[in-house]
């Protein structure tokens, strides 16, 4: 039976719309190339031993423990771009169907 490599359980696939402009939000004045930054973020936010701690760090109101790289990059970037205001101050708005 054919398998879908993009949905292989052994493969981490970022489910968000992580396009070029999404990555740039992390390159906020730091030196070094932004793709090296992706390496760092990928490992620190999406990998490593998960231990249940006492304190919850959150991004845009969502617990970091439940966020992968995709969610962090996508939600923060998208929120900034579409809302035009700092994240975490309000819930994202979506267009209302007519």
């Amino acid at each position, binding site marked *: 039976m054919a398998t879908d*490599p993009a949905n292989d359980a052994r493969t981490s*696939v970022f489910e968000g719309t992580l396009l*070029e402009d999404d990555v740039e939000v992390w390159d906020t004045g730091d030196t070094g190339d932004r793709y090296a*930054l992706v390496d760092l973020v*990928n490992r620190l936010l999406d990998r490593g*031993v*998960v231990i249940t701690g006492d*304190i919850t760090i959150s991004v845009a109101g969502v617990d970091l423990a439940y966020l992968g790289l995709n969610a962090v990059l996508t939600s923060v970037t998208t929120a900034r771009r579409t809302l035009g205001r700092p994240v975490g101050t309000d819930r994202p708005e979506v*267009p209302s169907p007519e």
Partner: protein
Amino acid sequence: MIHAYCIRYGVDPAPDAGLVGIDGAEVCVLRTGKIGLWVSESAGSGVSIHRLREHDKVVTAALTTATPLPVRFGTCFRDEASALGAMAQREADFLADLARVAGCVEMGVRVGWQVDDEPTCAPNSDRQPTSGTEYLEMRRLRANRVKDLKLRAAEVLTEIEKAMQLEGVPVVRSILPVRELAGILAHLVQRTEIGSYRAAVDAAKSITQHLTLATTGPWAPYSFVGADGGYHFGPTDT
């Protein structure tokens, strides 16, 4: 608040005096049973590139003397007792992981590509939908495009895996549907094999000239720890 960096055997050397982590706080080790947790006091809990780099700096320092289990960024405890309690509860798991990665480091290949065409092309603009129907249609087109990019990225990473010919080496793939970046391959390699790994990447470069390969590492084994494992042994046949 206590910020956790990595886990090592309790008998491993303590952090060097003067090693500082997030917020410039000195790093120390909390030991329980046969394991030790590298921690520092932390005043805040924000997420920033600077804090990510400070965290990784500490984990990298630990890597120089023994292979640690890197703790996911953002793991914090109220106090030492709480941290020690959480560690003791899963000591057996951590010891098993430490034994599995002992003597190894994580090496990575960042795979760049150029996606010139627009496969199922969704409009990638800031244009705002004027109706609910249009909004849903834009979302559908964009989802199709991303799905297509993921499939193509997966094929590219499989191609690189095969070109590197690292039979039996644990590998984790991260597919990034980014226009200029197909994804990242992470391999768990023996410290003594880092040179061979770089040579394997160079060999892959010569036969995948349509791609841009960049070697990264050595890293602590971020991609090879945790309950789910999540790795396979490459190259794959998928």
